[in-house]
């Protein structure tokens, strides 16, 4: 078993997913099984191999240096940006109090 319950709890906390004790008990062996299985990649000789960074060679483009060149991805769309927010207030995203 490659990872234990405490490790799963740590990862869940890093991933910001609350997990009950039952869930941790269930997930730990499942994740261990998957991680044990992917261990086989260690067998592959990758000395001198560069990790893949782009699957199809493509050059990176820059957009034109024009404000709101594309209105869809430009600014001035506050209401559209907030339209699906669960708690938009006064033109902002509302969140619980962050500072004591």
């Amino acid at each position, binding site marked *: 078993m490659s990872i234990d319950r405490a490790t799963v709890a740590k990862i869940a906390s890093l991933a910001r997913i609350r997990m009950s004790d039952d869930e941790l008990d269930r997930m730990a062996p499942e994740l261990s099984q998957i991680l044990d299985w992917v261990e086989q990649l260690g067998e592959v000789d990758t000395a001198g191999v560069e990790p893949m960074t782009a*699957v199809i060679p*493509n050059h990176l483009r820059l957009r034109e240096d024009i404000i709101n060149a594309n209105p869809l991805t430009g600014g001035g769309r506050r209401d559209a940006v907030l339209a699906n927010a669960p708690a938009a207030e006064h033109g902002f995203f509302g969140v*619980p109090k962050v500072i004591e």
Partner: protein
Amino acid sequence: MNDLTDLGVKAIRDGVAAGTFSAREVAEAFNAAVAAASQLNAFIVTTPEHALAAADRVDAARAAGQPLGKMAGVPIGMKDLFATHGVQTTAASHILEGFKPQYESTVSQNLWNAGAGMLGKLNMDQFAMGSSNETSHFGNVISPWRRADGGNADLTPGGSSGGSAAVVSGRIAPAATGTDTGGSIRQPAALTGIAGIKPTYGRCSRWGVVAFASSLDQAGSMARDVTDCAIMLEAMAGFDPKDATSLDLPVPDWSTSLSPDMRGKRVGIPREYRVEGMDPVIDALWQQGVAWVKDAGAEVVEISLPHTSYALAAYYIIAPAEASSNLARYDGVRYGLRELPDGAGLQDMYAATRAAGFGDEVKRRILIGTYVLSAGFYDAYYNQAQKVRALIAHDFERAWGECDVILTPTAPNAAFALGEKLADPLAMYLNDVFTVPASLAGLPAMSVPAGLDASGLPLGLQVIGKPFDEQGVLDACLAIEHRAGFAARPEKWW
């Protein structure tokens, strides 16, 4: 015209253009088929008014003598991974329930510009994570197919594009969009007896497609035959400056260039795909495929893709790693679900929202991804997986010196019963064994219906092509389609 729903993309488009029937008649016929198919649970929302409005625009354009688009008058199903303006888009998750995008994805907009209309948003595996459509928050999609053994076991349509596969095979839509990260177009197409193509990575814009694993995600078309897939893919594809990985290449006229003549073509048969314990039915189908491409004039050559057996393990590191990063955006602040327990602070809100909003498989993959990217493990897991991925891509590059396309089975089995593989996540992952390598290498690949198993369930063959050579893939699939003469269809029970 009694059975407009028996018609495919080309037949509908040409019939509308010729005035044999109106686009509105077609939309009404498919809207009725959608309304009658609720038992399959293939749609999360239906949009009959969208289909009718698009049809009316096409009929008006035709009456005015204006040119018609490639998909004029064709109502389609839209996988719920594509953002559609004002129409709920959830990726089949609870966390996005109620989300109504304020914009339209490039691919769906391209389809509407080509004259297509939308029948509804199709159910799928949650965030496209799954191979059986059993991870949706909105319930399983039931395949229209049933085993010929008299049993009425509900079967999987495959996944993640399970709703797409179900409606196309059930004559509820002539075509549907799909997305493919590790096989999510090809495997469901194979399991439901339809055709489906994943083009070269970058052909279809990812803008407005809910992200799963961005270096792998690619949209494609699903329809009943190769020609219909080619027409629809032409409408979907094209350069989009809003996607940094979009290919700045013209979209060829694949459908008008189609040719089933394979003389002078070399078809590679990778020996590593003959996996241990392969189902004899799948092996026999593969041999039949070899005979078909030879009959079409192709030369068949055995090739080697030595790192094939490591593809799945590499995929199940890379895809969860990218997913854990992509899905960090669901925070209960900007869109979708918010869970705010009494007295909770910001961090508690994030954790509670994500706990309530993600299904088990999504959580599993986020945790795997978080683990393999975490300090101390990055090199051993993620970097090693990306190196193996480079080796897999190199295997294909070398193979292209010996062959023009590669022929393999699409899936290791026919459709299984819902619930049958759910208990073991790893067994489910193995369903993608033949489709994942082409995904890792960004190659165009297609599944074409090729036969039935002893229970009367469909099986598919996969053709993988060189980068940008969708034409070679489509042509080889057309040669197989002509020889397979696949005419089986599910009997309507819903």
